[in-house]
């Protein structure tokens, strides 16, 4: 049986190792992948918007995609800075649909609804769910309208907290189709 495909975890800027290790151990329990911690990369200055005091998520994704580590099925960037895309006030993360790279920001995920720091039992599921959601996009999955699916759009922390870290039946089938198209066989959700 071939080894599961690898997801490369790339910290962008300074990211707490505990968070990265949590993702490394949790993601393979949900997706048929192994996770490798890769070397941290600095955040390029040109992605910073001085007026918005945020980083352009699309530009950061392009930066990640420019220098892909070899042998990785997908790359998930993790950053502590706040992200935006030009038309939206902020985003929790972004991914290239059907592409190689995805990105999540810990900035808003680490906050409670009232602005205080979120406790670990709230914060850690959020990073796993955000990571799964964005990785789902890299596997060609769009936003899903099935309740309780990880690919459902969540525009607020409240909605993100309500979701479970699972793909619905439809998304799992489409995910498997995608993986098979990529030559990754004998996969099923664990």
């Amino acid at each position, binding site marked *: 049986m071939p080894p599961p495909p690898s997801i490369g975890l790339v910290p962008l800027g300074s990211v707490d190792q505990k968070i990265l290790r949590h993702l490394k151990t949790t993601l393979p329990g949900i997706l048929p992948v192994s996770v490798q911690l890769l070397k941290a990369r600095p955040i390029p200055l040109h992605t910073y918007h001085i007026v918005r005091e945020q980083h352009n998520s699309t530009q950061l994704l392009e930066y990640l995609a420019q220098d892909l580590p070899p042998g990785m099925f997908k790359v998930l960037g993790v950053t502590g800075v706040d992200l935006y895309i*030009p*038309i*939206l006030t902020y985003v929790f993360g972004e991914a290239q*649909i059907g592409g190689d790279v995805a990105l999540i920001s810990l900035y808003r995920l680490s906050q409670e609804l009232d602005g205080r720091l979120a406790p670990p039992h709230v914060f850690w599921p959020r990073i796993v769910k955000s990571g799964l959601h964005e990785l789902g996009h890299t596997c060609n999955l769009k936003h899903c*309208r099935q*309740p309780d699916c990880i690919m459902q759009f969540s*525009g607020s922390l409240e909605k993100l907290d309500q979701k479970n870290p699972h793909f619905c039946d439809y998304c799992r089938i489409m995910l498997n189709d995608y993986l098979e198209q990529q030559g990754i066989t004998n996969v099923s959700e664990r």
Partner: protein
Amino acid sequence: MLIPHKKFNLLVVDDELIIRESLAGWLQRDGYQVETADHGAQALEKAAAKHYDIMLVDVKMPEMDGLTLLKHIKEQNPDTAVVMMTAYGSIEDAVEAIKQGAFDYLLKPFDLEELSLTIDRLVQIQTLAMENVVLKERVAKIDRFEELVGQSEPMLQLYDTIMDVAQSDATVLITGETGTGKELVARAIHAQSPRGYAPFIAVNCGAFTEQLLESELFGHEKGAFTDAKFTKKGRLELAHSGTLFLDEVGDITMKMQIDLLRVLETHEFTRVGGTIPLHSDFRVIAATHQDLLAAIQEGTFRRDLYYRLNVVHIPVPPLRERRGDIPLLAEHFLVRYAAETNKKIDSIHPEALEAMRNYDWPGNVRELENAIERAVVIGKGRQIQLADLPFLGPTDRSAAVGRSLEEMERQHIAQVLEAEGGNISRTAQVLKINRTTLYHKLKKYGLKTCN
């Protein structure tokens, strides 16, 4: 949670590339089909070639601003919902846009939830509107299908043919005398076909002048001719995914026959005054009371168009060939008109029924319907009497024997004229002659109309 029944098409119109890209990318992730335009003219061009369910339009754009574009879209594609996008400084414009028919406005940059909610709400409204149209059409169809009444052998054969033909996409030519119910047959085919949930668009080709028919069928661009104040979709466009019913197709001019033939071959056309080719997927059912083969011989109907239309031929029998259905039809119309006029008439005297059965009904089912309607209106008791059907009274066929042809014609015209309440158009229709000929004959025989 809303699950749209179809893929929604969105158009993002903004002069800033970065906004177009980021918004389109985000909406694609939501599963929408998104295209972009960088200025108003391009947006209008795209909207003329393709239907967009939702447009997101920037208020501030060079050359054509968002408000002007909104005005054009509302004229050109009134079904498209428009959401204006604006910066903080131009809220007044956004409010003005709402007054002019925009669905909503969003302040740039948008909040994640706000964008999602606005689009979801729009999709929900658009989906409900579509469902409403489909349901209305279905209710109307049920009514109409019920009007195809008859249990005689020719009608049972007709029902079988309808069911067989409905499953294919073949073009159908329905022929039959005036008043036999050709449109009802067409509607029944449509209702039973896989296109049954899509629109049934009927065009009475005989009712329009050449220019009007051209505009009705192909639509027109604003300013294409003097009265073209707005861009109008043609019935070919409206029939997309449904059925186009061309009634009285034998009445169209040679020029229109050429245009029509081209459209039937390619399903592509341009609006009058327009240049953008449009495509529409429709099934064609045509009908005529004319003898098209004779018209071909006379050179008034194109042979190639005839073959294009006459893939499947359905002749609808005249009422005199299915006399057994007369009581059933009479009862059907009696129930309807008694209910409409709120009169307690619930039966037909056997003598009246017998007279109806013996009458030839040159105007077919329509004539019978008119006769029952009239009898219900003038009837005094609970039962329709022979006296309520005066045109049937003097059907003294034996008395007519030996009379001259002219005398018989005079009597027949007088009977139909009376049955139609003195209405010249309806009388001419029943007699299958034009109004001018009817006037000549009325003058010749000294007959008077009520008007």
